[in-house]
């Protein structure tokens, strides 16, 4: 018997929210990016699962693009991190506090 779709959805929901919480509670910008990766992976699980259940390749293609975008984001993100580290010697997000109020 095939695994019901809702199992996948619950799994992805859990992973997604773990990622969300990670973004909220981790101070290290790198780990925050890792958490975002969790969110993206959760999404991907959704897409693939739906794709399977709809007998439709579109979901898999979407994942492919999402993966591309994730890679691009990582590139830019890490560049920003390096620039930040160079300027501030810190990669803690809560040290970014020049701009407020």
């Amino acid at each position, binding site marked *: 018997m095939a695994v019901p*779709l809702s199992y996948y959805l619950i799994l992805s929901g859990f992973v997604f929210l773990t990622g969300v919480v990670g973004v909220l509670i981790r101070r290290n910008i790198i780990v925050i*990016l890792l958490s*975002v990766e969790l969110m993206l992976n959760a999404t991907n699980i959704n897409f693939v699962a739906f794709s399977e259940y709809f007998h439709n390749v*579109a979901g898999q293609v*979407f994942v492919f693009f999402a993966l591309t*975008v994730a890679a*691009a984001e990582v590139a*830019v993100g890490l560049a920003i991190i390096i620039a*930040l580290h160079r*300027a501030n010697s810190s990669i803690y997000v809560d040290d970014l506090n020049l701009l407020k109020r």
Partner: protein
Amino acid sequence: MTLPVQDLLAILPELVVISTACLILVLDPILAASKKDLLAWLTLAALAVCLGLTSSQVTGRQYAFSNMILIDSYGSFWKLLLYIVTGLTVLLSLAYLKAERLNIGEYYGFILLALAGMMVMVSGADLLTIYLGTELMSLSLYVMAGLKRADARSLEASAKYFVLGAFSSGILLYGISLLFGLAGSTRLPVIAEAIATQGTGNPILSLALVLLAVGFGFKLAVVPFHMWTPDVYQGAPTSVTAFMAVASKAASFGAFLRVFVEGLGGVSADWSILFTVVCLVTLALGNLVAIVQTNIKRMLAYSSIAHAGYALIGVVVAGRQGGMAASTGLPSVLLYIAIYSFMTLGAFALVGMLRKEGQESDNIEDYAGLAKREPLAAFFMLVFLVSLAGIPPTAGFIGKFYIFMAAVNGGMAWLAVVAVIFAAISAFYYLRIVMVMYMREPDNAAASHSRLETSPALSFVLACALAGVVLLGLFPNGLWSLATHAAPLLK
């Protein structure tokens, strides 16, 4: 595998933009530092070509590339607006980059790439293209926000924008995945059809709706997804801020309306309630917090938040009326954003070029006595601020007028009343700038008062923005008919 010519013709403007961007990226290392201006002119030339191309596309409705993209009057409206504001931004940047001693030829390439992303956003017929367009735009903007690397604030803005942007795009993507799960496709018409056949009570749909609202809410900078805006607007180089505040917001509205009206029109009753609340808190927060700002860029950021709130009224009304063709809600949003673009761009142009000792002077206090030092600049600022406050006979009034018309027509007069109360409050912070410029003397007698660093390019930008603000205020017919022509084609 063949490339149909029609498809290529349909995306000719995009192609022009992209190829010019690539050309610039290639040319940049070759050109001598002193000749980087050429790149700007090249950009402008490309925009001019696009303007012509898109103008020929304002009628009709044509899908291209396997229904991935839709060339219609709605998208063309936004594209035309984007060309104009991008062109003005480029001109502004020409002056601004010199003043900031930033010499990055890629800058123009990024502007064009971001523009390409925006164009994809507003003409995407598939959530995939819209998502990719959004990412293209966002990634360009992340980079552009951090371009002033010598300034820690610029980097900080970039980092914050990036972190939150990635976060929000994750949320958006999750929403898209759920929609895909609902309809088995990411094409907007298919989604609309699925909603129509399955009914609206599906929880997964509600969840998707909320997640999409969060994702787009972030791009539109509406409360409570707005919080990046002030920080990023303040930290980013001003020309980039202007671009973000104007072009990015316009494109986001374009895509947002496309998705919510065309794709999720079936549940418009749901999302109009959601956006009513968002609209109210946006109006309230944007206007209230703007009052207490001391930095003009931050103030304008809050002002742009508040303006998104006004535009949302039109969206709410359209949603409430089920996106009816009779509703003037959508056209009024289009009109509002177009008008908003001119006045905000004008204001940011001035903010960016008012400098003292080579530094941008973005503290409101720096504007003290400006009317005496720079009467013309002060007058321009006055007009932009008055228009932002929505006082006739400027275009800002026309924008609010149509929004309120739509609201009252849609049976939401109370919303209009709330909006006018906040409009009155908003007048306070706009007028405070006028007050500082015209009625206050600078505190210290030092010679280091901010002055406008003029250049022909800047003058042209200001003149265009002023003309837009004044002429659209006096003769809104043309823009309105464009907007009414564009909006109903959303179905």
